[in-house]
């Protein structure tokens, strides 16, 4: 039977042979006889000591690149600018009175409220956002790009503008709001549910974009395999797709939860700043800053700790890679 003792790949797959010979034409093939040595590429002469090329060679041989002039000091300023405020926060924190400050009733209320609203926002984002991400990734419907752009708009929209828009949609006299009020007696502005919705508005796009990226990155042939094994669409999603995109869902959840937790502009505009009802932690910080800087700093430290925890949890996996 036909099998080459090939030059490079001993025992390689026979598809090489098939591919090579199936070109048709003569049976002669290439003129390289078995055992021909292939000469290594010749080494280039090193550049003379006075030539600029030598610098470049040395740099690349050492493995690092030389930055354009001025980049290093500029980058240092950037790092300082970004970290100095955080360092200041840590330095000026009232560490001594921290335990007492943390358990002050106002702080605990704000903390509890923030957790309820942000977890609620995350749940709503997952419930509605994952199916949307699935459709955006898989179904090439008309206007898909437009829908995607609109869905991602809250990510770049100034949050307070988002709050105003929410009022116009869901407020007492809003487009939907008037129906909610008239038919069901439900008001959303200045309620806890309203705060939750404001947070969902800004957080859901993060989840959608991350999960859509994860869906696009996954190997769809696993779903084909599951179909050939008799799995219907729901079973495929539950047992094959979801586990495979779990890292993307986790990353998206972390991002959107952190975003929801930190939301200020939309919350204060749509839901107001009522302690116990809608005064989430960012709002509490803002208020406290005017009266009691210590409480403001304490709350800020809590939020900083949460943010760091999210960062560490994500560990650089902002978007899933295949």
């Amino acid at each position: 039977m036909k099998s080459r003792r090939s030059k490079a790949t001993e025992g390689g797959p026979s598809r090489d042979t098939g591919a090579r010979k199936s070109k048709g034409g003569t049976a002669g093939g290439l003129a390289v006889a078995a055992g021909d040595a292939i000469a290594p590429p010749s080494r280039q002469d090193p550049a003379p000591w006075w030539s600029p090329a030598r610098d470049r060679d040395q740099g690349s041989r050492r493995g690092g690149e030389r930055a354009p002039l001025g980049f290093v000091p500029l980058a240092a300023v950037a790092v300082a600018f970004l970290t100095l405020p955080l360092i200041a926060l840590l330095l000026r924190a009232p560490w001594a009175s921290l335990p007492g400050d943390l358990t002050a009733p106002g702080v605990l209320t704000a903390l509890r409220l923030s957790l309820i609203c942000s977890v609620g926002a995350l749940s709503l984002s997952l419930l509605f956002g994952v199916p949307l991400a699935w459709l955006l990734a898989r179904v090439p419907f008309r206007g898909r790009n437009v829908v995607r752009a609109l869905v991602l708009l809250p990510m770049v929209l100034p949050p307070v503008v988002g709050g105003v828009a929410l009022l116009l949609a869901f407020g007492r006299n809003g487009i939907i709001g008037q129906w909610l009020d008239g038919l069901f007696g439900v008001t959303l502005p200045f309620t806890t549910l309203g705060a939750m919705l404001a947070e969902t508005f800004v957080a859901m796009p993060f989840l959608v974009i991350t999960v859509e990226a994860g869906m696009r990155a996954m190997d769809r042939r696993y779903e084909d395999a599951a179909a050939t094994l008799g799995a219907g669409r729901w079973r495929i999603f539950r047992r094959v797709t979801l586990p495979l995109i779990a890292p993307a869902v986790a990353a998206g959840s972390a991002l959107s939860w952190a975003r929801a937790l930190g939301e200020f502009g939309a919350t204060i505009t749509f839901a107001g700043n009522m302690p116990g009802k809608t005064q989430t932690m960012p709002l509490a910080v803002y208020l406290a800053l005017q009266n009691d800087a210590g409480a403001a700093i304490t709350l800020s430290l809590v939020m900083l700790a949460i943010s760091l925890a999210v960062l560490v949890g994500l560990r650089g996996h902002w978007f899933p890679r295949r």
Partner: protein
Amino acid sequence: MSLEAAVGLHKGTLDLDVELAVASSGVVVLLGPNAAGKTTLLRALAGLVPLERGRVALDGVVLEDTAAGVRVPTEQRPIGVVFQDYLLFPHMTVLENVAFGVRSRGAGRAAARTRAHELLEHVGLAACASAKPRALSGGQAQRAALARALATDPRLLLLDEPLSAMDAGARAELRRGLSRHLSAFRGTCLVITHDPIEAMTLGDKLVVLEAGRVVQAGTPEELSSHPRSRYVADLLGLNLYRGRMEQGTVVLADGHRLVAADPLPPGGEVFAVVPPRAVALHRSLPDGSPRNVWQGVVEDLDVVGNHVRAHVTGGLPIIAEVTPGAVASMRLDDGGPVFVAVKAMEIEVYEA
């Protein structure tokens, strides 16, 4: 149990138009060069690619019929597929993988696990049941994928190059194992392969696909004695020529003539096949009985076991099979002129 399929579809630059019939309990091997449409055909039979026109019926049950507007979705077809990369679910254990199809078709968890254990025993992987797919070797993964496909008792088993990812050492062993499983399998089987040994040993019937069309179909014996395309001839290592029959001589397109001992009536298009072992090489013009003699140059040498295949070009290209001793004593690798001699007796001619 049988498969009747007429598949017509376009995919990218591929225009697939194939008719296929497989008898009950038969194993059909699908052969062909890259991009011939073999995998697309397999996916179409599995229902993963819709037909543009055609009909697929398995055991009399219509799975797809474009004329009647019938299309059974993939998950409802009684099929099992072993994909080229096996596609074992990475987040499940081997046992869960094999049980997946059984569970999907309605069995309870315990029943599915029992069945999965049975299959794993059958393929010799009982010890790997709780391992994850990434811990398996290539051969183990292949067997796991086969077990998974067989677990649901499919009536049609589709295998896409089941052995191509193996290295040569593991391949022979796995091929024998696969051959045993396929013979024991009661349904219809379609295997895609590139490898001539797999094709010859696994299949009852071979179908050769080139550029979306069937160019030859037949038993392994038929193919090896009467190849009808360059691809098949190359696969089997035979010399194949096509020309017109004229008074005892086959006249090829470029004007070369081959004298055959048992010619066909003149006028028709014919194939002429010459086995390499029937080709003799000489350093000087031979003066003997062979009717077909011409001059050429040895372009390339291949070693196959203890035979050497010499690729001769110039004149009519041909492959000659000689011993290593001959190569050495005649110094065939020096690129000098050689004379090719082929007896008319060794040339078989058949209708194109």
